[in-house]
């Protein structure tokens, strides 16, 4: 499969009164054509900052890209001027945000808001743009599209609004869609609808999706590959099966163990104690160490590099070093790992992706 986006060693910091907040401290990943990559993490992990940085939407000052490159269509997006980025945003790479209530301009008809995206990048007449906008509304499942074009955001429900937002993002058939927690603010049933819609469209248009979320259930539903972020770094990355059934990083274990599950309703719900570190003064060594029951002495001294688990699966934990002791992950995780062999066998001996 073709690589359409390459992010190499991205470092992003925010300069505030108190000093420099290192929000992203060396993120590397690739995105392939037609796939859905989920980026999972807590608030403050850097996932939102990373995604906004891909479109260079972070306000600069106070943010700045300290180092790294974002390679797309043969160009390094970190080096482009804002004007050059404008011809990529909305056209080649689109983004949708979390809160549909506030993502749309309340005083502009939604028809105009969709047409704005079309007219900016394509040489169509107003009529043609209008036709296309109606098509888009129909594509995202809004009935009475022609009538709805002239309405304002407050006349739509939350789920409908998010569909409109998606329609805007798809206006120019982008290659990449970045979805920053698009369903977090919606009711669960609507959530499911929107996710289905996105999968559907992805199949139709063949675009890649970067899906930012903190909800592992959504990840299981949507993703082909998963990147787990903590304190500004990717701590584990792999296919969805590998991450869910053969995780290697203690943080990933913690995330999986803290998912409520019907199979374990009698045991106490696990939660990772403590809170994420202050990125104004990132700790030496592994940032997760202070909350890691499996921490080794070296975790407090040196940051672990990425260890390879398979062609598609990497984890940054000293536990994978040859000199590390064998540890028993939590029960929940162990059971999943047992299932892993079955899955691999079922899928013909090769993990998905």
């Amino acid at each position, binding site marked *: 499969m073709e690589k359409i986006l390459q992010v190499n060693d991205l470092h992003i910091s925010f300069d*505030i009164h108190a000093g420099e907040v290192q929000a992203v401290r060396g993120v590397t990943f690739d995105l392939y054509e037609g796939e859905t990559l989920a980026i999972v993490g807590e608030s403050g992990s850097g996932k939102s900052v990373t995604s906004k940085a891909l479109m260079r939407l972070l306000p600069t000052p106070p943010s700045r890209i300290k180092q790294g490159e974002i390679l797309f269509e043969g160009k390094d997006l970190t080096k482009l001027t804002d004007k050059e980025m404008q011809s990529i945003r909305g056209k080649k790479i689109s983004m949708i945000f979390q809160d549909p209530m506030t993502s749309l301009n309340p005083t502009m008809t939604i028809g105009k808001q969709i047409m704005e995206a079309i007219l900016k990048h394509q040489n169509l007449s107003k009529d043609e743009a209008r036709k296309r906008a109606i098509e888009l509304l129909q594509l995202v499942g809004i009935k009475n599209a022609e009538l709805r074009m002239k309405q304002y955001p407050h006349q739509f429900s939350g789920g409908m609004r998010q569909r409109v937002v998606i329609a805007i993002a798809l206006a120019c058939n982008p290659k990449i869609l970045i979805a920053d927690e698009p369903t977090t603010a919606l009711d669960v049933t609507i959530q499911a609808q929107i996710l289905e819609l996105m999968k559907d469209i992805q199949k139709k248009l063949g675009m890649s999706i970067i899906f930012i979320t903190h909800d592992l259930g959504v990840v299981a539903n949507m993703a082909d590959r998963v990147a787990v972020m903590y304190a500004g770094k990717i701590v584990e990355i792999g296919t969805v099966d590998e991450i869910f059934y053969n995780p290697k990083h203690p943080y990933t274990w913690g995330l999986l163990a803290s998912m409520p599950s019907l199979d374990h309703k009698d045991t106490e719900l696990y939660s990772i*104690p*403590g*809170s994420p*570190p*202050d990125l*104004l003064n990132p700790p030496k060594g592994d940032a997760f*160490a*202070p*909350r*890691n*029951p*499996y*921490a*080794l*002495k*070296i*975790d*407090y*001294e*040196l*940051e672990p*590099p990425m260890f390879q688990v398979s062609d598609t699966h990497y984890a940054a934990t*000293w536990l994978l*070093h040859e*000199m*590390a*002791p064998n540890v028993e992950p939590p029960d929940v995780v162990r059971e999943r790992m047992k299932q892993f062999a079955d899955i691999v066998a079922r899928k013909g001996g090769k993990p998905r992706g």
Partner: protein
Amino acid sequence: MAKQQYDQLSPEWFQPAPPNVGEQEKINRPSLTFWHDAWLRLRENKAAIVGLIMIIILALLAIFAPMASERSYKEQNLSHAKLPPKVPVLEHISWLNLDGKDSNGVDVYKERGIKEYYWFGTDDLGRDLWVRTWYGTRISLYIGLLAAVIDLFIGIAYGGISGYYGGRVDNMMQRIIEILNGIPYLIVVILFILILEPGIMSITLAMVITGWTTMARIVRGQILKLKNMEYVLAARTLGAPNSRLIFKHLIPNVMGPIIITTMFTIPSAIFTEAFLSFIGLGIRPPEASLGSLVNEGYKSIQTYPHLIIIPSIVISLLILSFNLVADGLRDALDPKMRK
């Protein structure tokens, strides 16, 4: 990361070192209380600090300066009429115009054989402008303070009751405010002044009737918001209630807008009084208000400009300082700006 660091690792490093469970719950950055945080941000706002200092200076002058002179604010001395300002020590700096010389460059004091120094000069009836100016400042500050007190008592009470009881009581009280707001404040003042004598009383009464509506509206808004929070709190009591958190959040939420509104009411009230006195509806001579002094000064604007310049500067500085502090407070107490 130096590659060699990763090449020579001793096995000892791979000993387990699990963290203390207790330690993990400690919060990393010391959290500031709401007020401490606000104070820090206010301090950073140089304009607000300048305003605060100016207010203090002007207030001190208003209280003590008239005492420094033996002359009263209404004492007339016709032989000392129309004197330009003359200040010891500063009189030697020529461009400051504090040397007792009039617009023709003549030393009026010498001419008339006057030995006393009038720091701000005198008006056409020989009254000491220094004393009158600071006297007028006292009145401005009094009005400002009065407006603040009225806001605090009537405004908070009205808004609090309206918001707390809600429903029909709230509805009716709000309608009354809507109508009160519809009546231009100045009209009410003028009407009052016409019945009663122009002066402090009428201005005071007018403020009592209409000046508190903004505060009432704001307090009501806050109470309504807090009431919603209460239901959230009720849900949280199913978990572990922390009454301290309640007080640390509820009270700052109400106090913030109250303080800001009060701080903006003061310069507005000061302006209104000055304005009324200027058009003759407020304080009238022989009493001294900064507004009336500016009005008197107009007559001699070309010959004795100091009569209008000095009270103009003082009233402008007074209102400006309060506005700067109010602006600074609003920026400091606005929770949206916290990062």
